[in-house]
């Protein structure tokens, strides 16, 4: 068994599971914020939510797949584990950073919207 192929399978399986699960959670709970942003346009909030979900999946799964092509040749199981955990850790960190940036963004948009409607 080629260690690299095993590592690719594990890496893609685990990260795809994390990304799909988190994307679904954001889609589900983020809907409330979007409905808050467009209070009298539920159709607009729903379509924006779906577009954002698809964009998120495309960019993240695409990045994960793109990342696969630059791994070194693995020599041992220790090497495999070390590389696998650091790669998955990096993906989780990046997702967390993007998540907080998005929350800030939603807050800024909400603020701007209330200013606009008050004018």
């Amino acid at each position: 068994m080629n260690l690299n192929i095993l590592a690719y399978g594990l890496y893609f399986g685990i990260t795809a599971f994390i990304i799909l699960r988190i994307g679904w959670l954001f889609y589900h709970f983020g809907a409330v914020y979007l409905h808050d942003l467009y209070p009298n346009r539920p159709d607009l909030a729903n379509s924006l939510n779906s577009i954002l979900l698809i964009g998120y999946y495309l960019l993240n799964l695409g990045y994960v797949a793109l990342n696969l092509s630059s791994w070194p040749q693995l020599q041992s199981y220790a090497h495999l584990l070390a590389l696998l955990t650091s790669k998955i850790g990096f993906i989780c960190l990046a997702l967390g950073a993007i998540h907080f940036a998005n929350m800030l963004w939603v807050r800024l948009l909400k603020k701007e919207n209330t200013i606009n409607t008050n004018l």
Partner: protein
Amino acid sequence: MTTDLTVTAYFIYIPIALVLTWFVARNLFKNGLVYMRDIFNGREEIAVSTNQLFKTGFYLLNVGFALWILKMYQLENTQEMIEALSQKIGGFSVYLGIVLFLNLFMFFRGKKAARQNREAAERRARMTPSAE
């Protein structure tokens, strides 16, 4: 052996890229219709046709790009085939994501312009009777 692997990789890559394009286009323009109706003030016919035209353009651009980057070199074994495939499909997927967000940005711009036009028209309508 090498040509066999390359051909196999092409036959894996082409369906995945085409299905990905179809899925994204279908969802983007199903949701984009809401924006188009907003932009064209509920004029259904022109909203649907504009949406359809943009969809056709999206298909042309993305299917074209997917096929254009098809060429893969030096596939010696299965591992290299997986690496090359993941690079191509991942790159194409990131590209699709960027195009999707550009489209979304375009919808936002159109919606904003439509709203400003509408507000200006309302202001004009309010101004005219008071001037008489």
